[in-house]
């Protein structure tokens, strides 16, 4: 006699799973914002006049992009307390997601900034705009429009990556699933359902990002 599927454990624990989804969304949004901040600061540092700062940013990008997230989060999990930062696992996970996503965001945003024609920046200065105004109005917004698809794609990847944060016991969907699994031993039923929940989350995000794009970036360029 084979194994009897029993999805009732999933229904019994459905509220917990939904809270887990919210945990994943919260973790991911916080990670996205941190990634954006690191991305913008990184682009400025990457284009600075100071040689060692530029090289530092390049080294940061290469190291993050060529090592696994799992190793990064373990490293941060043990290294942050050494720096005197005693943080709970969820905050550690947000930092890890932000640092990881930030490295990718720097390269994406830099591509967008480079797509802005030099003459536009000069025109901005000629109009008497301040340096920060030129950056915000003439560089950042059109650049954001250009990079929006790859940036939001990266954000969805970040959301999927957040499942790895279970390894430091952050509060999110995968760690909730692992707890239910260890209580009920219904591994397949639980993980199958959670996979579908993740699929729903990435679908929702894709739809939301597309709606935002229509709202803010659908102005004519010529």
């Amino acid at each position, binding site marked *: 006699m084979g*194994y009897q599927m029993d999805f009732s454990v999933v229904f019994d624990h459905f509220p917990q799973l939904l809270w887990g989804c919210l945990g994943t969304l919260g973790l991911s949004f916080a990670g996205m914002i941190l990634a954006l901040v690191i991305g913008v600061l990184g682009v400025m540092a990457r284009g600075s006049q100071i040689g060692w700062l530029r090289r530092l940013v390049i080294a940061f990008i290469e190291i993050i992009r060529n*090592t*696994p*997230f*799992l190793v990064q989060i373990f490293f941060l999990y*043990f290294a942050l307390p050494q720096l005197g930062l005693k943080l709970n696992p969820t905050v550690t996970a947000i930092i890890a997601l932000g640092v990881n996503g930030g490295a990718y965001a720097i390269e994406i945003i830099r591509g967008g900034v480079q797509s802005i024609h030099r003459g536009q920046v000069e025109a901005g200065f000629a109009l008497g705009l301040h340096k920060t105004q030129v950056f915000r109005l003439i560089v950042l917004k059109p650049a954001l429009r250009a990079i929006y698809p790859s940036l939001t794609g990266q954000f969805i990847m970040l959301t999927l990556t957040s499942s790895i944060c*279970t*390894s430091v016991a952050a509060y999110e969907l995968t760690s909730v699933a692992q707890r239910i699994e260890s209580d009920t031993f219904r591994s*397949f039923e639980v993980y199958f359902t959670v*996979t579908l929940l993740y699929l729903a989350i990435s679908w929702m995000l894709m739809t939301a990002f597309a709606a935002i794009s229509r709202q803010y970036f659908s102005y004519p360029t010529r």
Partner: protein
Amino acid sequence: MNVVFGFKEFAFLLTGLKWTVLLSLIAFAGGGIMGLLVAVARTAQSAALRRAMILYIAVFQGTPLLMQLFVVYYGLGLVGIQLPAWAAVAIAFTLNASAFLGEIWRGAIQALPRGQTEAATALGLPLVSRLRDVILPQALRIAQPAAVGYAVQLIKGTSLAAIVGFIELARAGQIVSSQTFAPILVFGVVGAIYFSLCWPLSLYSARLEAKFAAAG
């Protein structure tokens, strides 16, 4: 008992590295071949087949790799297939790679001018020969930068096998870390090993891309 991170511990990391490399090679080769089938089915005449493949790809690209690993790992046991752990995780990574490499192959095949297929058909070449002698050699060349880039993702992805307890490089790092109580040193070394594996591939991928961009 306090162990110092020495030669024996480093050697243990290297046995983990062996499995990381093996898993990556199996998944890349298996996923590459399966990916060809995915790409062909994705562009087939039959709408049902095309839609099934779109769903297949959407599931693998829209869910976490870790979940795919869990579902395959525990699912195989349920359908009565008893496999060693390395084979179960290798299957999961292969399936994931087939979806990603399948999309890369498809992009490359569709980037070829239609005239290539038409000329091959006009010459009376059968389908297999058309693919093997005309389409694939050119498409694989176009796909190179993206495929090498995906190889980096794959190598990093195999670290997730550590979470189901399979001893590859990341899991070996966890074990050594808890023996030596020197997590920062150990994960630093583990990260450096992954880096020395992935960085050359990333540079190679970027160089190929620049070369093709220049060639037009």
